């Protein structure tokens, strides 16, 4: 009976039934079958009010939406353009990565930065197809950089130290940007695009323009790494700072637009948190029933090597990444995978980086990667055009993923250095 219900719910989910209702209903049914009062599901929901870490989610999301609605993307591109003379492709990659780290939700980057960058890239002489692929790939680049929400959410769900994750994401994140930048440089050379000379006047002028935004990453990351502020306080600081800078100083956002921004950001927050609330009940049940351990035992019968396990994990996560958005994928899959991966000797911090890199790539994997649809919508191009445009980027990212997966040191070296 319960099997039938689960199948029905999965079919409904594939047709767009909200994920939280799917999780919630399965949890209710499982508890009911065990003869446990269904209010236990609600007990798990209430644990949302139990973690200081979750406080970061609404605050960072709000700050991200403030940046997206202001002229920050404009100033960020101008500044990166002055600082990175290697051509606009590199500028696009770097500025999108920074923007994504602070806004978290992947689609926002393509919407906010893409419209700005595409005409500029075309004007500089880059090929249109290359540009579309580049911007689609940039949409999720930067998820590994602190203080990205997916990193925080992984830390919460997997109960891994956020400080460790923030350190672990740095080198792999830079690695991904460098790999794509090298490709961008090569294409730039080949297509003979315009390349600006480095000029201190331009740097100074761009710096002056963005003078209020430049200190923020240093303030937040410096504060967290030095232990002066907690992640929760860093989130409050970022929101306060974004509010002060964009509304009072730059006046990019008039006061009358604030309610709309609150509404948009809180809708996203509600969407994420309600899934988390419902999934907590379900994962509590699964863990009580020792499902992850059974899964591990079953897998160990067929798999003995950690390397083969990692390969299968990558394939599995790529599929998950192109079917689900990053938040629900984290909430649903992490509790099941972490015990299994630990059983195979994978470090949970390294696993987090593998996880997010996979989901990042899943976003641009045809046929259903979310970034492809957002780009198609934003740039008014058929999705098929984006499939072909993103292939080179997809292949490069897959190669980088391979390196990140099989060389745990890239993720762990900074964590170990900080630990010692």
């Amino acid at each position, binding site marked *: 009976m319960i099997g039938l219900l689960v199948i029905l719910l999965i079919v409904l989910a*594939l047709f767009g039934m909200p994920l939280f209702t799917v999780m919630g209903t399965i949890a209710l049914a499982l508890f009911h079958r065990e003869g446990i009062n269904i*209010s236990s599901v609600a007990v798990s929901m209430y644990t949302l009010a139990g973690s200081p870490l979750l406080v970061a989610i609404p605050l960072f999301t709000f700050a991200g939406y403030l940046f997206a609605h202001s002229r920050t993307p404009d100033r960020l591109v101008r500044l990166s353009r002055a600082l990175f003379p290697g051509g606009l492709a590199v500028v696009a990659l770097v500025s999108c990565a920074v923007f994504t780290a602070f806004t978290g939700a992947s689609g926002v980057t393509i919407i906010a930065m893409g419209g700005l960058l595409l005409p500029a890239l075309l004007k500089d002489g880059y090929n249109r197809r290359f540009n579309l692929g580049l911007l689609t790939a940039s949409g999720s680049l930067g998820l590994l950089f602190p203080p990205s929400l997916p990193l925080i959410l992984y830390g919460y769900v997997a109960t891994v130290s956020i400080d460790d994750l923030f350190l672990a994401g740095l080198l792999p994140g830079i690695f991904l940007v460098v790999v794509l930048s090298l490709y961008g440089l090569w294409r730039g050379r080949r297509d003979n695009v315009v390349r600006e000379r480095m000029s201190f006047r331009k740097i100074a002028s761009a710096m002056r323009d963005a003078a209020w935004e430049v200190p923020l990453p240093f303030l937040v990351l410096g504060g967290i790494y030095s232990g002066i502020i907690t992640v929760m306080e860093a989130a409050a600081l970022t929101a306060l700072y974004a509010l002060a800078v964009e509304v009072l100083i730059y006046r990019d956002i008039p006061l009358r637009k604030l309610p709309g921004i609150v509404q948009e950001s809180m809708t996203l927050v509600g969407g*994420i948190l309600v899934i988390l609330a419902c999934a907590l009940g379900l994962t509590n049940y699964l863990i009580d029933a020792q499902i992850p351990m059974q899964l591990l035992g079953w897998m160990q019968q067929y798999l003995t090597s950690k390397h083969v396990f990692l390969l299968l994990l990558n394939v599995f996560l790529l599929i998950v990444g192109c079917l689900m958005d990053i938040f629900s994928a984290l909430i649903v899959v992490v509790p099941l995978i972490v015990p299994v991966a630990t059983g195979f000797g994978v470090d949970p911090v390294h696993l987090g980086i593998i996880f997010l890199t996979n989901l990042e790539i899943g976003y641009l994997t045809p046929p259903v990667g979310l970034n492809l649809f957002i780009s198609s919508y934003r740039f008014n191009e058929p999705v098929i055009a984006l499939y072909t445009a993103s292939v080179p980027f997809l292949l490069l990212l897959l190669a980088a993923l391979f390196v990140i997966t099989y060389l745990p040191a890239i993720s762990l070296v900074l964590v170990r250095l900080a630990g010692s």
Partner: protein
Amino acid sequence: MSAAIGGIVVLLAVIRTILIRRRLLEGLFRFLGSLELAAAALLLGLMVTLGGLQIVLRNFFHGGILWADPVMRHSVLWIGCLGASLATCRLQHITIDVFTRLLPEPVRPFRHAVVHLATATAAFFLGLAALGLVAEERAFGEIAFGVFSTWMLQLILPFAFLLISYRSLVNLMTGAGDRPPLSTTEGTEP
């Protein structure tokens, strides 16, 4: 008891649908909507202010507000619940939804109806579960912080889920359909 609650949710949804169709009391509902938004904005403002204050107090005065932490944590719960019911209104819940794109246009209203009905039913049962929690907690009588008992703070859970159930029913009866791919499109345009 649960049948009565279900009846009320359905009745309210029917009344609301009739009002929407006849375009009656629009001002009242706009006002209620802005109250909901104001509550979320207030909580967000509270979180920002308390978080900022804590940094200053802890680093410069070696102190802090004792109740700031539980207030901020409960604000997350409340904002999450308010946001989730807003997401139902705006058809912006996170979904997997790989197949809808493949459906031919004439079948889509049917798909919307099934999804709204299933959502309303699921949210109703989740609301009942949350009501059960509140009742148990009330009998227990624990204080969360200040004058607030835990059950009072938990009230948002059944409220939000029943509201989601009601709103999904309204979506069903008004035939609300496809959602835009992303909400951020408005406003980012220059």
